[in-house]
């Protein structure tokens, strides 16, 4: 099975430099994304998932810097691209949509002006063509009466509408890769489903690859083909979506799955993951999850495990699956029981 790999991230490391410390927000992340597929990057706040996304488009703000690794997008290493090159790629070949639709549109311009701008920058379309294409795009993302909406200001639209406009803008130039940074977090549940449906639908139609950043396992189940679970700036588990839900291996993944309410089993109390994400400037020496892990042993506190293949479609960063495991050899890391 040879698929065309559109994005190949190798050992990406991104740090923030404060006065005297280097805070490693992303610490050696690698994954591959085949064309037309969706990868979900999952993790709690502070796990480095958004920084990974911003690194791909080189959108990091001042103290943040990519310190190592490669981001190969169609044979081009984005970490080495010039400012000019990366600008041509942004919005044209790789687009991004953001978490906060309420503030992602410039309040002083109409929807039409903003869509036209992207088209003008990348395709040199004039006002008339731009408006025509803009109306088509708004129609595509399911906005009713697009001819009227295109003359309106963002404050005249609802949150769901604005997120659709954002998607329309992101898709204006038929990008090959869409990075969606928690696109549904700020929306209510019914609108969430619609937005995800639109993204899925457009992905099929344009054979687009998607990086879906989220902390919502429900979103993952609905949209993703592959999942990378991140914790403390590192990928702790990487698998295809079925495997993640059927046989989660890493205690953290299991913890995430256990903390979601289920509709098929009557549960009185959810099982949270105790404790907090470690602060990036005070990372545990060994496995980053060790302080919160119910199975942690001395080895876990001492040494960082590597991301190893444990089955055909699953890579896990955990000592339990290695030969050096010094805890209970019978330990079972079980995800929520599946009735189906």
């Amino acid at each position: 099975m040879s698929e065309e790999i559109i994005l190949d991230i190798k050992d990406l490391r991104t740090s923030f430099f404060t006065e005297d410390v280097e805070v490693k927000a992303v610490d050696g992340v690698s994954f591959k994304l085949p064309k037309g597929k969706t990868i979900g990057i999952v993790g709690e706040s502070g796990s480095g998932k958004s920084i990974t996304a911003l690194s791909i488009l080189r959108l990091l703000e001042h103290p943040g810097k990519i310190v190592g690794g490669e981001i190969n997008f169609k044979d081009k290493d984005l970490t080495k691209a010039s400012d000019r090159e990366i600008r041509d790629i942004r919005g044209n070949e790789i687009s991004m949509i953001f978490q906060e639709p309420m503030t992602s549109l410039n309040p002083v311009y109409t929807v039409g002006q903003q869509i036209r701008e992207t088209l003008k920058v990348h395709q040199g379309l004039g006002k008339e063509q731009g408006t025509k294409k803009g109306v088509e795009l708004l129609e595509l993302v399911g906005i009713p009466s697009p001819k009227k909406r295109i003359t309106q200001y963002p404050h005249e639209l609802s949150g769901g509408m604005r997120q659709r406009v954002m998607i329309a803008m992101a898709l204006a130039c038929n990008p090959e890769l869409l990075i969606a940074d928690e696109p549904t977090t700020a929306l209510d549940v019914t609108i969430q489903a619609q937005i995800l449906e639109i993204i899925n639908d457009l992905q099929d139609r344009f054979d687009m690859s998607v990086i879906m950043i989220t902390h919502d396992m429900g979103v993952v189940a609905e949209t993703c083909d592959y999942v990378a679970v991140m914790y403390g700036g590192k990928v702790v588990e990487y698998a295809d979506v079925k495997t993640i839900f059927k046989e989660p291996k890493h205690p953290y993944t299991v913890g995430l799955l256990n903390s979601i309410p289920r509709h098929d089993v009557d549960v009185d109390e959810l099982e949270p993951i105790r404790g907090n994400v470690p602060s990036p400037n005070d990372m545990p020496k060994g496995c980053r999850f060790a302080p919160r892990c119910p199975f942690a042993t001395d080895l876990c506190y001492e040494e960082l495990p590597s991301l190893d293949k444990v089955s055909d479609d699953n890579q896990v960063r955990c000592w339990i699956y290695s030969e050096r495991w010094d805890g209970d050899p019978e330990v079972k890391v079980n995800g929520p029981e599946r009735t189906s």
Partner: protein
Amino acid sequence: MNAEQANNQSTEQKKKKVDSPFKRSAKDFYKKLKKNKSALIGGYLIIALIIIAIVGPFFTVYDPVHDTDYMVKLQGPSAEHWFGTDHHGRDVFTRVIHGLGITLGIGFFATILGGIVGVLVGIISGYYGGRVDSIIMRLMDVLLAFPGILLALALISILGASLQNVVIAVSIFAIPTFARIVRGSTLATKNLEYIDAMRALGASDARIIFKHIFPNILSPIIVQASLFVATAILSASGLSFLGLGAQPPSPELGAILSNGRDFMWDAGHIALFPGLGIMIILLAFNVFGDGLRDALDPKMKK
């Protein structure tokens, strides 16, 4: 979906006649300005002053500089000379009308000149941050450390006394006040998500600065500009009064005032009328600027 659609349709029906976006916001702005009576009066007064300054000189009977008539020097107001005459027998009314244009011109020019530089400096400082920001803002602090009029005095003593140099001096001390306000607004704006979104869509720095940040920080700039016109006029008149700006025959209001000072006890009207002129201009701009601030304040939006 249904609820949303229904909602859209109902709002669509409510406002069937849709104005162009610009017209709508202009209307909205005028409505808010109208609520503030004093600002409206200030605005009309400014318009009236500008019209007088432009049209007035065509209707005055005398020449402001050359019509000297020593037979009627230092006379009080009369039907012949509405504001009386000065020590050369020139008509003070004529001089004030002509001076209005010069004084307003200095105010506008100095504000525009200083405003453009200040806005550029401030926006660059706020947008790029880091070392650029530190260097620029420390420079601005140095400029701000001098009292405005002192700075202008120092500059004019270097450049020489003339109307042109007054404009330059006043605009230089406009720079830091604009730069500070613009920098602050830029800092607040540049971290908003739509700026990130524009960058993610491939916009260049220049495009983001001028097309996306600038229009969003326009209101504090406009308010600052309208208030600074008053400051500029006051400073320019002050400099002319001290003999460093407009030179004697020129009918700049501050210069007339300065001349009139010598005859304060015998012919107070020479100083009175240009003084009143300056006062009305300042009052109009200040009141208008304050009203503008209220009207453009996004927090006051209902």
